[in-house]
């Protein structure tokens, strides 16, 4: 039989074509989605905010590269996931935080939470969130000292004060609460990347449009916060714009590895995040609850996935 091209052809299993979405492309989309909030962080808190985020990114990338070099694993730096973790961690810090603490946070996020558990896709909790919580309990004062927005010229005078939720939590002088408009734009005290609801919303919509995330978790999360606030007799707009709700709902709670796979599970997860956030805000001793809420729901994710399994075609529950 005529044999042509023998030995030169690639023989591989089907399918022989694949989609052009890659891990790197997804992470790049997340980074693009974070650009508006990144810019706003500079506008609101000045250049130190930018520098702190850049520090986190550099530290995260170096820790990941170093860890993988030492443990002789394939480098995954090019998938950009360490960059995403760095930005998200930076966004969760007050802009006045000493740089070395940010580096400690990066170590926790990349080495302790991500790499020791096996790298991308294996962590049980969101690296940036876990790092933030670790920093919060380790360095309580610098982690809760909130610089107030500098003026637009970017002075670095460290004027600090309470966050909107802090004011609410202390319940003293509610008249000093910022207007909803300031909240929406982000000219309030808080973690450097979480204050501008509008910037985060634009990023979130970009992620939805690019199909990087599905709407279920953000909708359930934000919706629950909204309804809870309404029922508790508080301003729902205030609650969804204040603190880390927008950042958490669009960028942290939607982390693939630590949120449920199926739609029903995602909705339950989002509702859980919303409920926990509001319970901590209104009844807990911390003014802000988004990080704790997401961390807790991260830990419950395997159980949620188990509870809301689906039936296969042909009707078997797996």
């Amino acid at each position, binding site marked *: 039989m005529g044999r042509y091209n023998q030995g030169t052809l690639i023989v591989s299993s089907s399918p*022989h074509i694949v989609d052009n979405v890659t891990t790197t492309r997804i992470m790049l989309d997340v980074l693009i989605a974070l650009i508006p909030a990144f810019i706003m962080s500079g506008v609101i808190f000045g250049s130190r905010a930018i520098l702190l985020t850049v520090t986190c990114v550099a530290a995260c990338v170096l820790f990941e590269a170093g860890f993988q070099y030492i443990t002789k694993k394939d480098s995954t730096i090019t998938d950009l996931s360490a960059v995403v973790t760095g930005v998200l961690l930076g966004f969760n810090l007050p802009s006045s935080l000493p740089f070395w603490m940010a580096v400690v946070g990066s170590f926790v996020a990349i080495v302790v939470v991500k790499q020791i558990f096996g790298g991308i896709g294996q962590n049980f909790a969101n690296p940036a969130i876990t790092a933030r919580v670790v920093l919060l309990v380790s360095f309580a004062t610098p982690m809760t000292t909130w610089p107030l927005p500098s003026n637009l010229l970017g002075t670095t005078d460290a004027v600090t004060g309470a966050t909107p939720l802090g004011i609410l939590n202390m319940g003293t002088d509610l008249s000093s609460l910022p207007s909803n408009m300031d909240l929406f734009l982000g000219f309030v005290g808080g973690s450097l990347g979480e204050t501008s609801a509008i910037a985060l919303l634009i990023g979130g919509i970009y992620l939805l449009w690019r199909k990087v995330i599905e709407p279920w978790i953000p909708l359930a999360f934000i919706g629950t916060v909204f309804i809870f606030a309404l029922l508790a007799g508080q301003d729902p707009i205030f609650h969804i714009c204040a603190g880390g709700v927008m950042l958490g709902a669009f960028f942290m709670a939607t982390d693939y590895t630590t949120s449920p796979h199926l739609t029903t599970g995602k909705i339950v997860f989002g509702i859980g995040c919303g409920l926990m956030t509001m319970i901590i805000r209104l009844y807990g001793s911390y003014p802000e609850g988004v990080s704790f809420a997401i961390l807790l729901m991260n830990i419950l994710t395997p159980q949620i996935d188990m509870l809301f399994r689906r039936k296969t075609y042909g009707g078997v529950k*797996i």
Partner: protein
Amino acid sequence: MSIFSKHLPAIHVEHYKYTAESPTEKMPVPDKVYISMVQHIGAPCQPKVEVGDLVKVGQVIGDTDAFVSAPIHSSVSGKVTAIDKSLTMSGVWDLIVTITTDKKQEVLEGLAPPQIDDKDSFIKAVRASGLVGLGGAAFPTHIKFNPKNLDEVDSFIINGAECEPYLTADYRTMMENSELLINGLKNTLKYLKIKRGIIGIESNKAPAINKLRAMVKDNPEIEVMELRSVYPQGGERVLIYETTGREIPIGKLPADIGAIVSNISSVVALQNFIETGMPLVSKKVTVSGNAIRIPKNVEAPIGTPISQLITFCGGYKRTPKKIIMGGPMMGAAVYDDGMTVNKNTSGILTFDEELATLPKETPCISCGRCIKACPMLLMPTLLAKAYDAKDVEQLQKLNVNLCMECGCCSYVCPAKKQLAFTNKLGKRLVMEGGKK
């Protein structure tokens, strides 16, 4: 599956249907044809000819008494010059009958339309026509058409989805052989006493939908159904669900829920046999991909080496790096272009280096895309983990055997993990594990 959807999960793939408007060209008879005695799932055929025998078109050259089988006919006239074992696509050694053609294409004397007057003679004719599932699975048609509970079957579904990218042979058949198709369907409904005939066609083939609809407007028992243009609408279980809303319970067959599914070209070939007595001796094949000079739909005698089809299509315009028999989603990559056109060959795709090289696998990021894409509602990423751990029990629990290897999961995976392939291996593991 979205909780709001009545459809099974599916994915969007690029169509690349370059040959949709290319009428089928009959290719000249090659100097030699190599007809494998393994053309269907089941028992291989025994050669019914010997080296030196003269054969004519339509003559039986291979058959067996085994139940799951179909006879094999000569696609040419000429002389049997060799009967020997040769390595085939699936990597096994098959018995191959080599016929050196005399180019006269003389038809076997006495070839005449079969006598059909009831179900039994109809089924007999189906077997005699040599028909097997021409879409890929190659299961003998006369068995499929005659399930034990035939009286409970109420829907005969013809798969006109042609959801694989590149392939257009079924579309051309629907356009060029519509009479045969509709008459074949009518005969099948009549002799098998099935109430309803459905032709499911993807919405991207509007001309075929319109043409066939016009032809059956006076036949209320026949419905031409427009399917969403997504992959894999042509998967048997998917097609049944999308056309009738029925799910086949695990371990059951389509007939158990009242449906029989057939391929477009099978029905056409059957009607051709009913009208002329000529069994299945040639196949319409889409030759395409980016390494071929002129993509075409070609009608080729069974046993033609694919290298000859490639020559007929102007040869390669770029160095081929991968040749696929079938579509890009489920077809098999072959070792060389000496493989032959078989009864179930639907396409020959040639890819250059760029298309042939798939991106490297990276770690799973748990994004859930594979889970969302699986039409069988499986959990591909968990299956892959279970396979990596060689956990037979978990593989079974996750129902690996339900996987139809459609490739949706691998297609959408951003980490480029070969999930469908892993499931193929997983199924094998379960089979071997079960034996122990």
